[in-house]
């Protein structure tokens, strides 16, 4: 019962924050509230006993993303452009997609159903055997690093590639920039040149 009350409270809070994010035009407020959104969903994950997911959500969603968004705020105006939010076709598509998703929810197995597909495949083996077979108490870690080690390698490479991409676009970690630095030649800015190379021409015109 207590768990249900907490769940309802957190979900209502989540919807409230989402509505506030949509309604406000101040981008600083949007960033702080999306951090609050992540923290609330982390609390929901804790209530669902998914502590590892909650931990990640709190650290990445509420922590680092908020800071990175704030760092970006130094280069963009503080307010959203007003008056561009009356697109009926977009509204129609949103409502339609939402209705279809709600319809699909009825096909899902009921929450926590032990007989549903996902709880019948490899999950029971991981849960019952991993402790004795691999001698690691935390099942999440064994699934993440051992049973699904290949997937986690892929995830790490995704993070690595994302970091490299940002470095190349923003910090000028490119070959031309490097050579220019070595020879002492002053390139105007390796960065803006790279950005203009990557972005399609039409985007430059609009700006």
């Amino acid at each position, binding site marked *: 019962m207590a768990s249900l009350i907490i769940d309802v409270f957190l979900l209502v809070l989540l919807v409230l924050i989402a509505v506030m994010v949509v309604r406000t035009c101040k981008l600083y407020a949007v960033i702080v509230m999306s951090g609050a959104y992540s923290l609330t969903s982390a609390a929901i994950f804790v209530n669902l006993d998914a502590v590892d997911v909650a*931990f990640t959500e709190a650290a990445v969603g509420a922590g680092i993303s908020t800071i990175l968004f704030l760092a970006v705020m130094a280069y963009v105006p503080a307010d959203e452009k007003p008056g561009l939010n009356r697109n009926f076709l977009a509204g129609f598509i949103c409502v339609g997609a939402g209705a279809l998703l709600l319809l699909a929810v009825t096909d899902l197995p009921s929450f926590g159903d032990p007989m549903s597909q996902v709880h019948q495949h490899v999950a029971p083996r991981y849960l019952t055997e991993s402790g004795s077979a691999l001698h690691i108490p*935390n099942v999440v870690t064994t699934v993440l690093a051992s049973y699904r080690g290949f997937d986690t390698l892929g995830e790490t490479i995704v993070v690595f590639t994302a970091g490299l991409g940002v470095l190349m676009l*923003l910090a000028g970690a490119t070959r031309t920039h490097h050579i220019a630095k070595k020879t002492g030649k002053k390139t105007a800015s390796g960065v803006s040149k790279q950005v203009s190379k990557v972005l399609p021409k039409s985007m430059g015109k609009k700006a």
Partner: protein
Amino acid sequence: MKQNPVFRVVAKILFAPIIMFGLYVQFHGDYSPGGGFQAGVIIAAAFILHAIVFGLQAGREIVSARVNLWMMVFGVSLYGGVGVVSMAKGGLFLDYTALTGSVATGQHIGILLVELGVGLTVTSVMLAVFHAFAGFVEDNAK
């Protein structure tokens, strides 16, 4: 924010405990919630706090861009390297049991090293992204 003594003192006091907590999350992931991803983010947060309070330049003096880039590469290579070593020892790719021959030690060492690779990569990528964004205007003005 360098002038404000409150920020300075709080940042100095918190810096070490945050890293300590990050290391705990990193190496205790086998027994409690946590692991490389979360630990990487927490440790990066400590460095970002330092950079926010004491300035980007001070942050770059602790971890230079070059060291950071090599840390990114080393993290991924460490992960892949564990897989290659386990193959060289006669197992499958990322088959940690093959590392030492016994399940108990092999799995422990394998997961520890792999999580360390993830942690290093995530820490350095987060730091690199923060420095790239925060230093964008500064670098271009030069």
